[in-house]
Structures are given as structure tokens and as C-alpha cells.
């Protein structure tokens, strides 16, 4: 019974963790520009994420080490700085886009314009981290995140052609605008395979004192949870395709995405969209701020714990505070939230190998995972998808930057 509860919780957790502004924006863009055609990118990204999340839980359960700690331990300090710097910069950009999403949600509801919400949103997130415990953050964000199921309901209400949607789960070549197509594809991959989630998940597993007996539960909850998250992203894409394509709307600003549910659910759709966007972004902000703090504190061997009082883990608390402030400053500078979201997701694709290759080496090192090492299937699948994301990113990012 307790195991069942844990699995359910794992699934719920992943909903909060998976559908955030990156998945939402990239899926909506994909649907509006290319109909169902890019569903395959969500499927590939989700499959890769399932494998990676399962691995980070297994690493924590068997080695009792977090992903960040094990990386410093195994590869040494100079090498560890490379993923540390890359992932911190990336996290700051993603933080800015999540905060941008939250600000937009608040603007939709109140009519007060958007950069002014940045300090408010960042402060609210900081307060929750300052006062709350890990389980409050994890479970609270996830339970509230259930509101994102509204996209699945909307998808069903639109009666899509499920046969065509299933067909699009297999990759196909673009019929028009090839550069745009590949750029959105890599943004979707980057949004799905969020590396910060891995640091968050493994720290949570160590803080909850997992051991070998948790390996099977971890496998089930990673699979079900991440599939559910992927399903939400597919629902967003389907709704966007059926709402925007017939009207010939191209998404160039964030607030256009907000109209997605209005044609399906009317005025309620508008508010549900704002709620889903705001809550999903808020949850992701908490996870990103903590992930950076975990990465830095574990890498340098400082005391880290979201359950401790801030003064008992001073440098750890300082890092998440600085991360939130940094994200707020970027938003207040007035960068275009949709542009920074798409770019940071594509950049994630380009930087994935830096985070994932050392991780795979760890997962094949018996000194860390004993007899629970990776099988060849998980190694091959992750290498193939991360390799694809990297190649697509390196080719399409320069072209996208030059084009705009």
C-alpha cells in the first residue's frame, strides 16, 4: 500500500515537473506551425527523459550519492566545472523563461503589465523555499500542477483525428520551412529532456534515503510519471494544431498562446489557461532554483538540505536566492519571453551532451551502481536521442539566430 502511494506520488510529481513553460511554448508553436507533424519530437524527448530520470533515481538509491556529488567525485574538480558552469547559465535562462510565463499568467488575470510581476513572483518562490520543506515544495507544486490536465480535456473535446496523431509519432521530413521545423524540433527535445530535473530528482532520492529496494518502484514511477507529462505536452500540441492552423495564426508572442483554450472552453478556458501556466511555471521555478543550489553545494561538499533552516545550510540557501534574483533581473530587463524560452530550450539541446555523457559513464561504473549498471538498451537509446538533439541544435541554432 505504501509502495502504491509512492508510485502515485511519483506520477503526480512528474506532472508538476514536466509541463512547464518550455514544453507549453514549444508544443504550442509546433502545433500552430506544423499541425500534428512534430509529435514525434515529444515522444522521443519523453522516452529519453524516462530513461534519464530512472537512472538518476537508481544512482541515488544504489550509490547513496547525488548526481552532482558523484560527478565531482568521479571526474574531479576541473572537469566538474564544465557541466557546473554550463548548467548554471542554462538554468538562469530557463528560470527567466519560467518567471516570464508566471508573469504573463498574472498579467492575463489582472491586466497589470508583465515585468512588474517579476519581483513579486520571484519573491513568492523564494519565500516558499525559505520557509518550506522539500516535501511541501515537491508535493504542493505537483498537486496544484494537476490543473494542467485541462489541456487533455480540451484535446478530447476537439475530437482530433487520433489516427493521424499516432502516425505523427514517427519522425518525418518537413514539407515547408525546414529550418523552422528543425529548430522547433530541437526546442521540444530540449524542453522535454530538462537536465535540471535530474539533479532535483537525485537530491530528493538521497534526502529521502532510498536504497536498492526502491529500484523497482523508481522504474515504475519514472516511466508512468514522465509518460503522463509527455501526454500533456502532446495534448497541448494537438489543441494548438486544431485551434491555430485553421485560423492561419502564427505564434509570434506569448499572449497568442493564451487564446488556445478560449475557443474550446470560452471564458473559463482563458482563466484555466492562466492558472495552468502560472502554476506550472511557479513549480518549475522552485525546482530550478533548488537544482542549481544542489548542483553547487553538492559539487563543493557544502551542507545542503531543503529541510534544514536556511542558517544551517547558509551557502546552499544563498545559491537558490541568487538564482531567483538573477532570473528576476533578466525578466525585468524586458527580454522577449517567448524568444528566451525557445532559445534556452534549443540551447539545452546543444548542451545536453555535457551533462549526459558523464552521467552515462557513471551509470556504467560498477563502483557507483554495483550490479545495477545500465543495460545496453538504455545506453543506446539515450546516446541516440541526445546525439540527435545535439546535431539538430548545432545546425539549427545559428540559422535561427541569423534568420531573426
Amino acid at each position, binding site marked *: 500500500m505504501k509502495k502504491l502511494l509512492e508510485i502515485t506520488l511519483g506520477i503526480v510529481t512528474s506532472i508538476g515537473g514536466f509541463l512547464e513553460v518550455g514544453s507549453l511554448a514549444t508544443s504550442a508553436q509546433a502545433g500552430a506551425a506544423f499541425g500534428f507533424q512534430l509529435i514525434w519530437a515529444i515522444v522521443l524527448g519523453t522516452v529519453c527523459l524516462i530513461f534519464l530520470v530512472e537512472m538518476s533515481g537508481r544512482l541515488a538509491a544504489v*550509490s*547513496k*550519492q547525488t548526481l552532482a*556529488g558523484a560527478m*565531482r*567525485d568521479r571526474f*574531479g*574538480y*576541473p572537469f*566538474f*566545472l564544465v557541466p557546473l558552469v554550463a548548467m548554471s547559465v542554462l538554468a538562469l535562462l530557463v528560470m527567466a523563461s519560467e518567471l516570464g510565463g508566471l508573469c504573463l499568467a498574472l498579467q492575463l488575470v489582472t491586466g497589470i503589465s508583465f515585468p512588474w510581476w517579476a519581483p513579486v513572483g520571484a519573491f513568492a518562490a523564494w519565500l516558499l523555499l*525559505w*520557509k518550506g520543506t522539500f516535501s511541501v515544495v515537491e508535493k504542493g507544486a505537483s498537486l496544484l500542477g494537476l490543473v494542467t490536465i485541462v489541456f487533455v480535456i480540451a484535446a478530447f473535446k476537439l475530437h482530433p483525428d487520433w489516427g493521424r496523431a499516432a502516425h505523427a509519432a514517427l519522425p518525418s521530413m518537413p514539407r515547408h520551412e525546414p529550418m523552422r521545423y528543425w529548430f522547433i524540433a530541437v526546442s521540444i527535445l530540449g524542453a522535454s529532456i530538462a537536465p535540471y530535473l535530474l539533479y532535483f530528482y537525485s537530491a530528493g532520492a538521497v534526502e529521502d534515503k532510498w536504497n536498492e529496494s526502491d529500484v523497482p518502484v523508481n522504474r515504475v514511477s519514472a516511466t508512468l510519471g514522465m509518460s503522463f507529462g509527455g501526454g500533456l505536452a502532446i495534448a497541448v500540441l494537438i489543441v494548438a494544431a486544431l485551434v491555430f492552423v485553421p485560423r492561419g495564426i502564427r505564434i509570434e508572442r506569448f499572449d497568442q498562446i493564451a487564446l488556445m483554450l478560449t475557443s474550446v472552453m470560452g471564458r473559463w478556458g482563458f482563466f484555466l489557461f492562466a492558472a495552468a501556466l502560472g502554476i506550472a511555471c511557479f513549480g518549475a521555478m522552485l525546482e530550478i532554483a533548488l537544482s542549481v543550489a544542489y548542483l553547487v553545494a553538492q559539487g*563543493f*561538499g*557544502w*551542507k*545542503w538540505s531543503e529541510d534544514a*533552516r*536556511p*542558517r544551517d545550510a*547558509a*551557502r546552499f*540557501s*544563498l545559491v537558490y536566492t541568487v538564482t531567483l534574483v538573477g532570473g528576476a533581473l533578466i525578466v525585468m530587463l524586458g527580454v522577449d519571453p517567448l524568444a528566451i524560452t525557445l532559445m534556452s530550450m534549443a540551447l539545452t539541446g546543444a548542451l545536453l551532451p555535457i551533462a549526459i555523457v558523464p552521467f552515462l559513464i557513471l551509470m556504467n561504473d560498477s563502483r557507483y551502481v554495483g550490479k545495477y549498471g545500465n543495460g545496453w538498451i538504455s545506453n543506446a537509446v539515450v546516446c541516440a536521442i541526445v546525439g540527435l538533439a545535439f546535431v539538430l541544435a548545432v545546425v539549427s541554432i545559428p540559422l535561427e539566430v541569423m534568420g531573426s
Partner: protein
Amino acid sequence: MEIALVRDLLDKQLVDRNGEPLGRVDGIVMSYRADAPPRITHVELGAQTLARRLPGPFRRTVAWLGRRLSPRASEPYRIEADRIVHLGRVVKIDIDGTRSAARETERWVRDHIIARIPGS
């Protein structure tokens, strides 16, 4: 017990006798005399040690930054190797970390920044 210095000691998590984290093994100090085998005397922690492990230009920048940020921590902190009581997933040291210089930066951040924010 046979250990590989880089694999089993360098970069490992250090904990004090209460199991509280002290930092990581940032450097290893050895001494040798002409007529005896080399011996590990200390493990080192701190920004200056970390700076020395970087390639040239980064090394100077980080060392400078470290001196500017915490003048008192400009010397690396050393712990006698004799104090090591356990070598495994973590390296356990038989000292009380609460007042140890290894925690100087943590204490500084706590007293000067974190403790001044309400609710800490």
C-alpha cells in the same frame, strides 16, 4: 589497505566526527625525504587550492577573485592526514567541524547574509 589517491581520496566528500559536511578534498599534500618513501601529510581545502588545479589563465583569475572575496581564506586550509578515520564514499575526519577553519566561509555567509534575513 591499498588506495589510489586520485580515485579514492581526491575530490571525496569530507565529514567531521559528527557526520557534518566540511567540504571536499580539494588537494593532497605529500612530503618525502631522500631516505624514506613519500608520505601523505595533509589534505587541503579552499579556494586557493581549487584555483591551483585550473589551467593557467583561469588559475590566476580565480586566485585573484578568491583573495578579493575572502582575504582571510587566502591560505589553503590543511587537515593532518592522521586525522582520517574512514575512507569510503565519504572521508571521515576526527575533528569537530563547528569551529573549524574549513567552515569559515559557511559561517561568514551565515552571519553576514543569511542570518540578517528574517525567518532564517
